[in-house]
């Protein structure tokens, strides 16, 4: 017992004194973005939006004994013109900030602060502690606990509908890189009662699998169960088959029981949905790398919901030249969807989507053009299409520092015209570092 306490205290004090840095590696990422947008909305006065945003990331590696590191990321924005959002003229977010201690063995690590957890069915932003490790014989464990991160207030409420604390974890088993089984769960504190929304507690249990009996076949997915509604919330599975090199055939299956899956989606009062409603989507795609520089993908998906069913199919082509410095792509998709999915009283929601882009980057400058159009079977608010075209030009002042500008123009049913400009200054110390642009 004494031993355990001693170890705990030692590790705790380690976390508390990161300043005992030896040869720390510091890297900074910063993007400063000025946007200008002129909006002309039917029936509203013309608006000019001028938001200025600063993104900042800081990573300090090799602290203390070399295994401790510090990671931070956040942004702040000030509106210099009309409000760009529905609330304040200034806003910001502390995305994450945590200390991490990595052990030399078994991929064990402890994190403390604000961080993201992605394990099995869990995908959360938490203020707390997370620890994980692999164990002998292919087992592994991960656990987290702490306070939930509240990011906004709902309209006319003083809460975002989330409980105050959350904890959870995942246990897994791996067999020789051919099978992995996982069980995960999360439990959030009681969701507050709201005046205008019906929300439920965020609590889920799930199991996940990854199975690859041969290198040409790979199956994976997960199922989650909502103990609050006592029903399965989600099934989502993917099968990849690689019969020959460069060809990937893939099939997916998704099924959601709406009330159980959206139970904690406060904004849409998920807990008030009909427990019998189920939606399903089944799809397939084939991607083929004809040469190292030319890839084509064809895809199809069928959607089934209470309000009807729909199909989407299409294809993409991507091309690269000159050692990857010139890249381009073309794509076409068609959505066939009936009245149930349409806007207002339109008889169909079907539309064609067409996109093309090209870009070039070199040591000194980079440039890109991108055009995207949607062509509706039935006019939406009296418009036949929505489209946007964009041009971007940039210059590398130093390998780490770049200045770029984008300009775009579009017309669509919502904004008669929408003109946007953007100026961007990025400083990225890790651009050329280990592991590429991390």
């Amino acid at each position: 017992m004494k031993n355990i306490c001693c170890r705990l205290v030692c590790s705790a004090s380690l976390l508390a004194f990161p300043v005992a840095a030896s040869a720390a590696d510091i890297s900074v990422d910063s993007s400063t973005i000025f946007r200008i947008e002129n909006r002309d909305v039917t029936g509203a006065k013309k608006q000019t939006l001028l938001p200025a945003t600063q993104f900042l990331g800081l990573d300090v590696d090799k602290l203390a004994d070399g295994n401790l590191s510090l990671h931070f990321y956040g942004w702040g924005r000030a509106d210099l013109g009309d409000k760009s959002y529905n609330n304040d003229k200034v806003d910001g977010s502390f995305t994450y900030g945590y200390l991490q201690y990595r052990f030399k063995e078994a991929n064990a690590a402890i994190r403390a602060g604000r961080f993201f957890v992605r394990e099995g069915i869990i995908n959360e932003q938490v203020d707390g502690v997370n620890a994980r490790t692999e164990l002998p014989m292919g087992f592994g464990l991960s656990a987290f606990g702490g306070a939930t991160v509240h990011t906004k207030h709902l309209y006319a409420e003083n809460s975002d509908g989330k409980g105050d604390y959350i904890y959870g974890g995942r246990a897994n088993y791996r067999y020789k890189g051919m099978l992995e089984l996982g069980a995960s769960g999360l439990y959030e504190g009681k969701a507050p009662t709201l005046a205008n929304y019906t929300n439920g507690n965020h609590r889920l249990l799930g199991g996940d699998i990854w199975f690859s009996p041969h290198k040409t076949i790979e199956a994976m997915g997960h199922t989650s169960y909502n103990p609050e509604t006592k029903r399965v919330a989600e099934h989502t599975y993917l099968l990849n088959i690689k019969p020959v090199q460069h060809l990937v055939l893939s099939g997916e299956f998704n099924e959601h029981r709406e009330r159980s899956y959206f139970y904690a989606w406060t904004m849409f009062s998920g807990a008030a949905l009909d427990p019998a409603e189920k939606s399903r989507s089944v799809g397939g795609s084939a991607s083929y790398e004809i040469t190292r520089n030319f890839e084509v993908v064809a895809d199809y998906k069928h959607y089934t919901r209470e309000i009807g069913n729909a199909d989407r199919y299409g294809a993409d082509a991507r091309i690269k030249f000159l050692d990857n410095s010139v890249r381009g792509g073309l794509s076409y998709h068609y959505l066939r969807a009936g009245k149930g999915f349409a806007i207002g009283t339109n008889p169909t929601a079907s539309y064609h989507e067409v996109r093309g882009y090209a870009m070039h980057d070199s040591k000194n400058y980079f440039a890109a053009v991108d055009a995207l159009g949607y062509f509706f079977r039935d006019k939406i608010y009296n418009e036949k299409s929505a489209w946007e075209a964009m041009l971007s030009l940039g210059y590398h002042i130093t390998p780490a520092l770049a200045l770029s500008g984008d300009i775009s123009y579009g017309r669509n049913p919502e904004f008669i015209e929408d003109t946007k400009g953007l100026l961007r200054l990025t400083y990225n110390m890790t651009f050329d570092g280990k592991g590429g642009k991390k």
Partner: protein
Amino acid sequence: MKLLKTSLPVLALAGLFMILAACAQMKSISSLPDSHPEALTTGQQVNCSECHEDQQKGTMKAFAAFSHSATFVKNHRFYSASDDRLCSTCHKSSFCNDCHTNKVQMKPSTKYGYRPDREMPHRGNFITLHKIEGKLDPASCYRCHGRANNERCVACHN
């Protein structure tokens, strides 16, 4: 207090790890490197097999499974669910957070306007289209806009 209560099991587990870490069996389980030893180009489609022979070690999955084909990128959520450790050898958390799970300031396609080759969610003006897409597959929206990143939506959906 609640924070402490929920953190306790984690701390206890952390303590357990450290005891385990001390035992010899744990020492034989090797760790992934802190960051990928080789710098990779930013252009699309990292093909792991270009540099890695596919001999699979211990409980590690074959490298080729993680090659960033169009299919991988579209379905990366399945891979991240069990191999987040591997992802983080190449990706900082912010790389992922530019697209999801928090309060995102602008559409990723705006922040990275100079990267039309990347697989960004809903490019262009999406206000009109979302009224169709939102009815078609709300579960896909929930993944990003469900419990975070919905400040903008509240203006119309209340």
